[in-house]
């Protein structure tokens, strides 16, 4: 049997969850024995080149590009995992939920105390830029997500154990210390 194929992405996240994937340390050598990577920042493959078995999503959806990437993951992956608090509940980007978009943009580009160079008071409006959503959405409110691994970031042991369980079909043990929300 060929190796299971893995894809990963970071949407409205900080790449901390990807750092936690790297935090499996030398087990990463075993990981590349176990799986083949496809679209992922890990190998820098930008687009899906074949059907993928497991897609790992870091970050929630804060703009139209996030939604598009997430939908392409759902389309190309058999199993989707929400990795980390941002993917699961919006996380820190979702602190803006409840604040009108106009106020957020004004604070970031015009009125904020550290804004000094934008003397023409321009709000980014290029057609190439993804549109901000009205609020930040957890991934499972946009597409169906199969599994959730909480944490900020999820502990490396949790990611490792979950991946191994998924690949080998063995039951996943969840020791108390690996499931944390921070």
């Amino acid at each position, binding site marked *: 049997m060929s190796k299971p194929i893995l894809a990963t992405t970071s949407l409205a996240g900080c790449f901390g969850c990807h750092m936690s994937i790297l935090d499996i340390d030398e087990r990463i050598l075993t990981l590349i024995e176990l799986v083949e990577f496809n679209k992922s920042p890990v190998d820098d493959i930008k687009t899906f080149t074949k059907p993928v078995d497991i897609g790992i999503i870091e970050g929630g959806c804060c703009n139209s590009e996030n939604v598009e990437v997430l939908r392409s993951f759902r389309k190309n992956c058999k199993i989707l995992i929400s990795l980390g608090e941002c993917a699961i509940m919006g996380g820190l980007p979702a*602190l803006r939920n409840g604040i009108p978009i106009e106020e957020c943009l004004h604070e970031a580009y015009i009125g904020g105390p550290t804004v000094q160079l934008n003397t023409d008071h321009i709000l980014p409006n290029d057609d190439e830029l993804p549109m901000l959503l009205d609020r930040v959405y957890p991934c499972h409110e946009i597409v169906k997500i199969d599994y959730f691994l909480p944490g900020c970031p999820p502990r490396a042991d949790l990611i490792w154990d979950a991946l191994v369980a998924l690949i080998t079909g063995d039951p996943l043990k969840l020791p108390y210390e690996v499931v944390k929300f921070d």
Partner: protein
Amino acid sequence: MSNLIKFKIDGVECMAEAGTYIIEAAKKNGVYIPTLCNMPNLKPKGSCRICTVKINGRLMTSCTTPVADGMEIESTSAEISELRKSIIELLFVSGNHFCPSCEKSGNCELQALGYLYQMMVPRFPFDFPVKGIDASSPKIIKDQNRCILCKRCIKSIKDAEDRSFFAFRGRGNHLEVVLDAELASTMTDAQAEEAMRNCPVGSIIVKEKGFAIPIGKRKFDHNPIGSNVKV
């Protein structure tokens, strides 16, 4: 000790004095029943419903129901655990609980119950309600985003004349626990610390004290909530 009665929790024989509330009687027998609103020395309110158990086929809150002779209590069945988990999930989606940025993370009872019942994701949609933060008092910050309206602070934090520092304001969806501005100016450091300690979530934070304990040394980092009760 003549009025000791026998009862069972999940089939285990227990003994307690008649009239003791189930949650307390269970504790004395080494059985942990979770709660978010109940506190020793306070009149039980039965408001958070986390301590729900099944007696004689009926769901009852164990903080408001006294034990009776021969009572058979169901507390760890799949049905009860699922019910408690759903209440925790409801609390998580109905407020703004950003664990990664919360000062109470690791010492939070709501979070600890999320761990205990292995909440990976709430089954309900997130509400993201618009709530305020009151940092106007000298000692503490009252963050409404995290408040679960348990009333512990209202009932337990009082001044020398038995006046509560905290009170309910508003009704229904707008109900919130607010700090009396005038009384708050007289709050001592000890009262502020006690208010933060009694709050089951991170809604009451003592100013300039956040993140005092490092990750790995906090209350629920290694030991699940209730593990101190088990015999």
